[in-house]
């Protein structure tokens, strides 16, 4: 699935460099993500993985380089236009709307599809009620898929960590994204929760054809579910290819064994 010649790229990153006040987080990184694949981005702490996702959906603006998504090229991506084009996202530190219920969090994932204006909302006329019920139907399917039925009205702040991660996935999924960026969706989970989460990710990928870009530290999971692995270290790309290929790469082995640079 990873061979560049027979697969269409959905995301092309070209020569991306990003620094914070002179501190380089990403140096000259290029790679492609192919349509319909699960691409894992791995690397030691501080390698620049999260920064890379932030560049892809416009949270950080790289000093150099271009991003093409779905055939459109950008030097500056904006979070809003990334969302409009179909890039969904979860965060390393859960970024749920803590004062809202599970249902409302996931419903908010569909905000781009809701067209009613605030007058219609205030009077509950026109498109307001109809839209709300239609989207509720779609959101209930996600709730069922993720097994969140019993907690749909619970405020997310009171949920366990693993469940919060699941709700965040649900919120991203609600927008029906073409590509999902998942920043360590399994970090800090129990073995069982990890297994559930990797099943969800694979099912989303298979059933909806959603391209997945995943940051993950657990090598077992990465080897298991990825079609394609990109390895970063100190802001540079040191490996890119099929999982087994990458794992036999000497640079990658060195980086993971902590050989000094």
């Amino acid at each position: 699935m990873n061979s560049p010649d027979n697969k269409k790229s959905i995301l092309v990153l070209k020569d991306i460099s990003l620094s914070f006040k002179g501190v380089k987080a990403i140096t000259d990184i290029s790679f492609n993500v192919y349509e319909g694949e699960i691409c894992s981005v791995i690397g030691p702490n501080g390698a620049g993985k999260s920064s890379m996702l932030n560049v892809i959906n416009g949270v950080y603006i790289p000093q150099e380089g271009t991003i093409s998504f779905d055939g459109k090229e950008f030097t500056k991506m904006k979070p809003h236009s990334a969302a409009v084009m179909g890039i969904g996202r979860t965060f390393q530190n859960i970024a749920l709307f803590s004062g809202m219920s599970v249902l409302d969090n996931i419903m908010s994932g569909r905000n781009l599809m809701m067209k009613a204006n605030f007058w219609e909302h205030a009077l509950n006329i026109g498109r307001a009620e109809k839209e709300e019920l239609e989207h509720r139907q779609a959101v209930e399917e996600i709730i069922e898929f993720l097994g969140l039925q019993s907690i749909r009205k619970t405020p997310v702040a009171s949920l366990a960590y693993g469940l919060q991660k699941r709700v965040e996935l649900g919120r991203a999924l609600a927008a029906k994204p073409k590509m999902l960026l998942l920043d360590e969706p399994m970090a800090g989970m129990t073995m069982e929760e990890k297994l559930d989460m990797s099943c969800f990710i694979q099912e989303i990928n298979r059933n909806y054809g959603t391209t997945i870009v995943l940051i993950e530290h657990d090598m077992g999971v990465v080897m298991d579910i990825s079609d394609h692995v990109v390895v970063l270290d100190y802001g540079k790309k040191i490996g890119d290819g099929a999982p087994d290929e990458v794992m036999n790469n000497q640079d990658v082995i060195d980086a993971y064994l902590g050989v000094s640079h």
Partner: protein
Amino acid sequence: MFYREAGKLVGSFGKDRRMLPLLEDRWLAVLFVAFMYFVVTAIASDYMFTAILIPIMVLGVATLGLNIAVGYTGQLSLGTAGFMCFGAFSAFNLILRIDWMTIPLAFFLSGMIAGGVGIIFGLPSLRIKGFYLIVSTLAAQFFAEWVFNAYPWFLNYTSSGVVSLPMHHYRVFPGQENTPFNAAFWYSSQGRYLVTLTVTILLVLACKNLVRSNTGRNWMAVRDMDIAAKVIGIPVAKTKLMAFFISTFYCGVAGAMYCYCYIGNLDFMIFNLRRSFLVMFMVIVGGLGSILGSFLGAIFVYAWPILITRGSDFIFGGGAIDTAFIENNSKIVVGTIIIVLLIREPGGFAALWSSSKQKLRVWPFAQ
């Protein structure tokens, strides 16, 4: 409690989305509204209308307005009284200068005008947050106090700075003069009470609709985590400005009602910074992000000092103790109660209400 959610199944998403999902709650709401319209209108005294019921509703609407900005959208503001002032002056000038203007339309338009002002003073929120935003909303307060003082046209060149609102201003519907419901009725405390009650109910319903819609979710998303809101496609800037617009719309209508329904005259001096703080206080005591809380806050902060004063008059006999002494003491008592409440329940009265409801749900079994 006599009724609970348990065993009450809803068969459709529409039913699940109701404002009050429980049948018993809906009946209570209907009974309460009917009571307010028919029983209270018939039996309450003038004192009750003008000193208790009307001001509580008016301040409750202002509190609800501020709560939309602060509690639902997380944008701190201390311009409330300034926005109320814009509403009050807009209503007065609309009714004064346009022959066919009626009170309901003037209230609506004054909300719109105040809302427009709110958008302007809300613009800094696109760049700054928290305490810094408070400072820029203070500008709205000082601007209002300055502009209505500097341009006497707004006060119709009244030299004293206070205009009392004449009876013929109370045009609730066109052609009112030829009906039994003439101006004298609407000028009476019953009439003003009915206007206030109706406007309040409509605004509460609209707010309830907003917060259970996409607009309300966007507000809360911006409040809770604006970066995540942006990433899922919520237009953060538009959401903030819309919250400011709707928030100041409510404050503007409250300002118009404050003059027309409560005190019966127009005066920019009453919309001072102290009143902004008072409304902020009501929001905090009532509970951030709660409609019910907005009114509980207004009731508590406004009405308790009155109740304590009247209560001590009743016990010790009116005039036996110096009124100023009682008033100051009642402030101390209320202040203490509020501090204790906020330490025990930072969510204010709204949280207290829902946690006691939760306790009653399982009563008499262990919690």
